[in-house]
């Protein structure tokens, strides 16, 4: 858990870039891309949160065995 805040900040930064470029890729029009962005970002972060839950569950179930 050391430096968790730094890691989360870095994750948010890279997520912002990925989602923004994804929105630009999907929409040639700037306004449409801007409108798409919050939904895409929410979906992306939700997907990441789900992945974290799955990874933690796997770690708890398999990797933590004595």
């Amino acid at each position, binding site marked *: 858990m050391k430096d968790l805040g730094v*890691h989360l900040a*870095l994750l948010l*930064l890279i997520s912002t870039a990925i989602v923004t*470029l994804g929105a*630009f*890729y999907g929409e*040639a029009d*700037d306004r449409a891309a801007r*409108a798409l962005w919050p939904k895409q970002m929410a979906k992306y972060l939700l997907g990441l949160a789900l992945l974290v839950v799955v990874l933690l569950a796997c770690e708890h179930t398999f990797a933590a065995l004595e």
Partner: protein
Amino acid sequence: MPEAAHNLATTHRGQPSVAAILTWLVPGAGHLYLGRVGYGLALFALIEGLYFLGLELAGGMSFEFLDAELRTVVAPLLSPEAGNLGGILWQMKTYGFGAGHLRPWPEHIVLGSALSAASGVLNAFAMVHAHTLARASKPADATRPVVSTLLGWVCPGLGHLHQGRTARGAIVFVLLVGMFALGTFLSEGSNLSRERHFYYWAGQFLLGGPALAAEALLGAGQVTRDIPYVEAGLVFGCVAGMLNILAMIDVYGYGEAKLFGWPQRSHSDPRSDKQAGSDDAAGGGAADRKPQDAGSALPRLGEIST
């Protein structure tokens, strides 16, 4: 006649896919196939010249940067040189992964390695140009979207700026160059070395100008201690380069749609989704459509938003 309508005229230069594949094998071959002899020879001289100059400077040792366990057939395919298939095949056949024992690097191996990699990337642009040229009725028109895309490699966001999309270009520049700068800061410049991080470097190379400039200025640094955030820094640099591919596809797609009078890409517009679906069902994406085939699927010119 409006420009877009003019570009829908039937052309008989050749198959776009064949032109692109020929260029992949031998730079300029696709242009020769399309009857553009001067262009083809100039591209061949430039791209192969760059590749073999790089090979000469590096003594053919670029792939000896890899540790023994990473020397597989995948390695050349994951390098920027793979954009010049003929070149990389020749290099692997001639030099492979080296003599199998350690020997000193040539003095200019870093420059040589970067030149060969740049040749691969430039040939990818030549392939795109050949594919566009085969479809455009006016050869000169095929150059503009490719030049915009190439500018996006020279500096992220510059291609958008060339197309008059200033705000988007500025956002792309700030995000991608900012990510790369942060990555370089976090990894204390250790990301700027192909020898140290062969595959991350390949991704980062797609960022183009800023990555090359940073490597030229700061790439000679020594690593003398553990760097706490080196992994994060490498990921940031590499992801910035790969995201620039999305930015360049955006630039090319915009220019291509303008050239052929197609509607701009939009996921929120059900009309374009439906049209894309019917194109796919017909056995080819927008990129493979011949102008005469595309005519029936196109909107009227007044509906085109540019």
